[in-house]
C-alpha cells in the first residue's frame, strides 16, 4: 500500500513548504514524509500562441490557426483575413444542431462589404429575361409572400482546405467554415412567378452588395454566381430574411441572402440584391474559372493530371457527407474506465444522415452512434456515443457518416486545385491515463 501522501501539492517552493509546515522536529519529519516522493518535474509554462501558419504538412489542428477576434454582432471567432472579412467558427460551437448567429463563420470575396443598409432604398431586383421585372422591399418580401422555413447547413467550398497534400494557396480553413441555421424567407420559385420568367431562359444569376477594387468586368470587381433553371435545387431555394429566428448579422448577409439547401455556400449570395434571369450560360469568372471541380468521382484528381491538362471540370454543387467529433476535443486527458460521451455533428448535401459510426480500433470495426433530433435532410444531425477506454495510453477515435443516398464517408484524401470537397473520415487522439 502506497502512502496516501505520495502526490502532494508543491504549489510553493520546497523551502517555503518546510517553513510553513513548521520548524519543530516533528514538523520536519512530516514534511519529509510529504515530500518523500519526487513530484513530476514538468511545470507547465505560460500558454504559447499557435504558429501563424501551418505547412507544408497538413494543418494538424481542428480549426485554422488564426488569432481570436471580435467583430460587430459576432462572438469571438478565428481570423483568416480581415479584408475581405473571413472568420472561422471555433470547434466548441458545433455541439448543438444549430450554430448560433454570433458564432457563424464569415467568408466574403471582395473588400467593399456593407457596414450599413438603408431599407428605404434597398430593393431586391428580379430582372433580365422576365416579362415583369420586379423590385421588392424587405417589407414586401416579409408580408406579400408565404414564409417558408428550412434547416440547412452552409459550408464553404474550401472548408478544411488546410488538410490538402500538397497544400494549396487560398484561405487556409480548418473545419470551422460551416454552420447550420434555421432559415426563414420567401421561396425563390414564388419570386420567379411574380417576375414571369420567359421561355428560353437558362440560368439565374445572383449578385449581392459587395464590390471589389478590381477593374470593371473582372471577378475582382463583382461577385456573381449562377444556378441552372432546370436544377432541382431551385425548388428548395429560399431568399431568407431570418436566420435562427433573428435578422441576419450584417456579416452573414443582412437583409437577405440566398439559401441553397445541400449546395456549397458559394451560391448562397449574401446581401442579395439582384436575381438576373439569363438566356445564355453565365461566363463570369466566378462560374467559368473559379469554384470548379474535376468531373471525376469525389471531384478528385492529381497535380500530374492537372499539369497534363486532361481534367474536365464542372461547377461545384452538392456537399459530400461529413461528420465531426466536437467534444471532448483532446485537450485534456481521460481517466481509464470513465465513460465519456463523444459528441458531434454530421450532414450531407445529398439528404438525411442515416448513420454515424465510431471506431476505436483504426477503422477495423464500427459501432453505431446515437443520432439526435432530425431537423430535415439538409440540417446538421447531432450524434453521441458513450465510449470507455479501459487501458491507459493513446487511443484514436474515428467517426464516419452515411447518408440516405448510400454515400459513406471514405478514408481516402481528396485533391483538386481549388482545395474543395474535403470529406475524409475525421480522427481524434485521446490520451487516457491511469485512474489508480
Amino acid at each position, binding site marked *: 500500500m502506497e502512502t*496516501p*501522501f505520495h*502526490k*502532494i*501539492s*508543491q*504549489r510553493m517552493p520546497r523551502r517555503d513548504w518546510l517553513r510553513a*509546515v513548521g520548524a*519543530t522536529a*516533528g*514538523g520536519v519529519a*512530516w514534511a519529509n*514524509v*510529504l515530500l518523500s516522493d519526487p*513530484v*513530476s518535474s514538468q*511545470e*507547465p*509554462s*505560460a*500558454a*504559447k500562441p499557435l504558429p*501563424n*501558419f501551418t*505547412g*507544408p504538412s497538413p494543418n494538424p489542428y481542428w480549426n485554422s490557426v*488564426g488569432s481570436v*477576434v*471580435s*467583430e*460587430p*454582432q459576432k462572438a469571438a471567432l478565428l*481570423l*483568416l*483575413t*480581415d*479584408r*475581405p472579412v473571413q472568420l472561422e467558427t471555433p470547434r466548441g460551437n458545433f455541439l448543438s444542431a444549430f450554430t448560433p448567429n454570433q458564432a457563424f463563420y464569415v467568408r466574403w470575396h471582395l*473588400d467593399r462589404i456593407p*457596414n*450599413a*443598409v*438603408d*431599407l*428605404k432604398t434597398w430593393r431586391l431586383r428580379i430582372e433580365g429575361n422576365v416579362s415583369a421585372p420586379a423590385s421588392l422591399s424587405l417589407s414586401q418580401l416579409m408580408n406579400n409572400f408565404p414564409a417558408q422555413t428550412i434547416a440547412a447547413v452552409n459550408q464553404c467550398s474550401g472548408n478544411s482546405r488546410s488538410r490538402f497534400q500538397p*497544400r494549396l*494557396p487560398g*484561405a*487556409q480553413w480548418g473545419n470551422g467554415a460551416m454552420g447550420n441555421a434555421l432559415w426563414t424567407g420567401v421561396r425563390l420559385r414564388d419570386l420567379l412567378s411574380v417576375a414571369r420568367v420567359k421561355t428560353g431562359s437558362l440560368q439565374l444569376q445572383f449578385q449581392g452588395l459587395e464590390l471589389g*477594387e*478590381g*477593374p470593371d468586368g473582372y*471577378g*475582382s470587381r463583382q461577385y456573381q454566381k449562377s444556378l441552372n433553371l432546370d436544377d432541382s435545387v431551385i425548388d428548395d431555394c429560399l431568399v431568407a430574411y431570418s436566420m435562427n429566428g433573428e*435578422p441576419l448579422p*450584417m*456579416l452573414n448577409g*443582412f437583409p437577405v441572402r440566398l439559401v441553397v439547401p445541400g449546395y456549397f455556400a458559394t451560391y448562397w449570395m449574401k446581401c442579395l440584391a439582384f436575381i438576373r434571369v439569363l438566356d445564355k450560360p453565365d461566363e463570369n*469568372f466566378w462560374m467559368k*474559372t473559379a469554384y470548379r471541380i474535376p468531373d471525376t468521382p469525389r471531384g478528385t484528381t492529381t497535380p500530374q493530371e492537372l499539369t497534363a491538362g486532361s481534367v474536365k471540370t464542372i461547377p461545384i454543387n452538392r456537399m459530400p457527407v461529413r461528420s465531426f467529433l466536437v467534444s471532448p476535443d483532446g485537450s485534456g486527458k481521460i481517466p481509464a474506465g470513465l465513460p465519456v460521451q463523444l459528441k458531434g455533428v454530421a450532414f450531407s448535401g445529398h439528404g438525411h444522415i442515416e448513420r454515424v459510426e465510431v471506431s476505436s480500433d483504426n477503422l477495423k470495426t464500427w459501432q453505431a452512434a446515437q443520432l439526435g433530433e432530425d431537423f430535415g435532410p439538409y440540417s446538421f444531425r447531432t450524434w453521441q456515443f458513450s465510449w470507455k477506454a479501459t487501458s491507459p495510453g493513446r487511443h484514436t477515435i474515428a467517426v464516419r457518416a452515411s447518408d440516405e443516398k448510400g454515400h459513406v464517408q471514405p478514408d481516402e484524401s481528396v485533391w483538386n486545385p481549388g482545395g474543395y470537397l474535403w470529406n475524409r473520415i475525421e480522427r481524434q487522439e485521446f490520451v487516457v491515463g491511469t485512474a489508480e
Partner: protein
Amino acid sequence: MKSTRLRFTISVLVPLACAAMLAARMEVLRAGLYAPDGLGQITQSAPTALEDGSTYAVAAYSAFSIQLADGPGRGETQISCNTCHTVRYITMQPPLPAATWDAEVQKMIKTYGAQISDADAQKIIQYLQTHYAPETRK
C-alpha cells in the same frame, strides 16, 4: 510529566497532523500557477449607438496590422497586394513553392486585373519566393 506530554501532543502534534492530513486529502499535483501573459485576451468592442429609422448599420470592421518579412520588394508587395486585399493573405498561406508564388502573382494580374508593372511584379515574386517558400518560411 504526563501533562507535559499531553500538552505537547495537543498543542504541537495534533495541529501538525491535522494540517498534514488536510493537505494530503487535497491531492492536487500543481495548483495556483499564473503566468504574466496577454495571450487569451481579446478586447471587447463597445456597443454601437443605433439610430432610429430605416438605416441598419454596424461599426467598422477591424483592419489588423501585419508585419511582412523584412527585405527587398516588401514595399512593392505591400502597396500592390493591399489595393484589393490584406497582405495577411500572404502570411496565412502554407510555405508555397517558388512556381506557385509566380503563378499567384500572374493570376492577380491576368485573371483579376491587378495593375502591376512588369518590374514590380518581378520584385514581388522574388520577395515572396525569398521569404514564403518551404525553404525560407519563418
